[in-house]
C-alpha cells in the first residue's frame, strides 16, 4: 500500500495542494490510520511551535526597511552572538542606547559611508559623539568604548568574528553569512563594549566557504593566529585604563 509522504502531508497543511490532490489525500486519510496519525503529529508540532517565541537570530534576518537606528539593529544580535560570557568584551544591556550624541536617529550617519583604507579587509570603528570613526592598528581605546567591526567582501561565503585578549584567550562571537554591503563593505551584526582591563585586544574575521565550528576556530587562532582553509584577517587595539 502506498502511503502519503511526509512532504505531501506538509504541503497539505500549508495549502499547496490543488483541489484534486486534496480530495485524493482526504480519501486516503479516511482509510489509513497511520497517515492520519502522522498528519496529527505534524499538527501537534505546529501547535507547540506557535507557543514558542521567535528566536532573536530569525528576527535579525527580517527585512531592514524601514531601517532602524544602526545601534538598535546590532543589539538584536547581541544575545546569540555573544552569549553570557563575561570576558574582555561585554555585551550592551538590551535596550541600552549608545552615547548621548547618538540617541537621535537623525544624527546617526549611514551604516557604511566611508572606509579608512582600501588595503584592509577588517576594520574596527569607534563610536563617538560625532559618529563612528576608524581606528588604526594599535590604537588606544578606553573602557566602555563601543567598537564596530567592518569587513570587506571576499569570495568566501561565511565570516566568523572572534576576539583575543592579552592572555591569549580566544572567544568566538559568531558566524554569519558574508554579505555584500555598501561600497563592498559590511558591518558585523553586533557591537562590542570594552571592559576596564588593560592590555592588547585583537579582533579576527575568518572567511570560510562553510561555517566552521567555534571550537575549531578558537583552537586554530589560539595556536596559529590563523584558521587553515580560510582567510584570516585581524586588527589589534590597545586597551588602556
Amino acid at each position, binding site marked *: 500500500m*502506498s502511503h502519503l509522504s*511526509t*512532504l*505531501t502531508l506538509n504541503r497539505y497543511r500549508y495549502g499547496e495542494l490543488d483541489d484534486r490532490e486534496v480530495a485524493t489525500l482526504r480519501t486516503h486519510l479516511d482509510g489509513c490510520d497511520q497517515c492520519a496519525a502522522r498528519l496529527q503529529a*505534524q499538527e501537534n508540532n505546529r501547535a507547540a511551535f506557535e507557543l514558542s517565541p521567535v528566536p532573536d537570530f530569525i528576527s535579525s*534576518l*527580517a527585512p531592514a526597511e524601514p531601517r532602524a537606528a544602526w545601534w538598535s539593529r546590532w543589539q538584536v544580535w547581541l544575545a546569540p552572538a555573544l552569549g553570557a560570557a563575561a570576558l574582555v568584551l561585554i555585551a550592551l544591556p538590551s535596550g541600552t542606547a549608545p552615547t548621548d550624541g547618538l540617541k537621535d536617529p537623525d544624527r546617526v550617519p549611514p551604516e557604511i559611508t566611508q572606509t579608512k583604507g582600501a588595503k584592509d579587509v577588517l576594520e574596527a570603528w569607534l563610536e563617538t559623539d560625532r559618529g563612528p570613526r576608524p581606528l588604526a592598528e594599535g590604537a588606544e581605546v578606553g573602557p566602555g568604548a563601543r567598537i564596530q567591526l567592518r569587513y570587506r567582501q571576499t569570495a568566501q*561565503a561565511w565570516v566568523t568574528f572572534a576576539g583575543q585578549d592579552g592572555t591569549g584567550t580566544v572567544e568566538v562571537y559568531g558566524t554569519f553569512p558574508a554579505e555584500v554591503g555598501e561600497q563592498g563593505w559590511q558591518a558585523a551584526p553586533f557591537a562590542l563594549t570594552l571592559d576596564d582591563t588593560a592590555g592588547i585586544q585583537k579582533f579576527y574575521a575568518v572567511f570560510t566557504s562553510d561555517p566552521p565550528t567555534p571550537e575549531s576556530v578558537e583552537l586554530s587562532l589560539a595556536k596559529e593566529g590563523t584558521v587553515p582553509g580560510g582567510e584570516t584577517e585581524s586588527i589589534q587595539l590597545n586597551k588602556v585604563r
Partner: protein
Amino acid sequence: MSLDVENLYRRYGDMVLGRCRSLLGNDAEAQDAMQEVFLKVHRYQHSFRGEASPTTYLFKVTTTTCLNRMRTRRRKPEELYDEPPPIQVEDTMLTSSATRDLLNQVLALADEGTQQAILYHYVDGMTHREVGEVLGVSAAAIRKRIATFRNRLKDNPPPWLQEVDW
C-alpha cells in the same frame, strides 16, 4: 526588497524544526540546524523566490543540511553533541530507532545522491516518482539506486528493510 525570513519562519518553522529533530535526534543540534537552514534561505533568497513550492524547497534544504551535519559527525566524532534523550518522531514512516539505524547504514554505504533517495523513500514514504521529482532525476534512476542499496544489505537486512514495502 529583502525576503521576510521572519514570516517564513513563522509559517514553516515547525516543519523545518521537526524535520531537523527527526533526522538529527537531538534537540540542541536541531535548533542549530534550523538556524543554518534559515541563514541559507536568507543568503540564497533569489533561488528561493523561484520555487513554486516553498514547502518542497525548505524540505530539501533542511534534509541536505541535516545530512551534511551527520556526515560531519562521522568524520569528527569529537564534535558530537551531548548524548541526546531519545526523541519520539511521529510523522515519518519509520520509528525513531529505525530512522537512526537507517541513517547509520545509508551514510556508511551510499553516495550522497543515494543517501537522499533512501531517506526520502524509506523515512518519508515517497514513491520513486516523488523522489525523482524532488531530486530532479527519473523514477527509474531512483529505483536503481534503491535496489543497489538494498542489495548491499541483503546478507544482513535490518528489520526496517523487511517491514517496509512501498
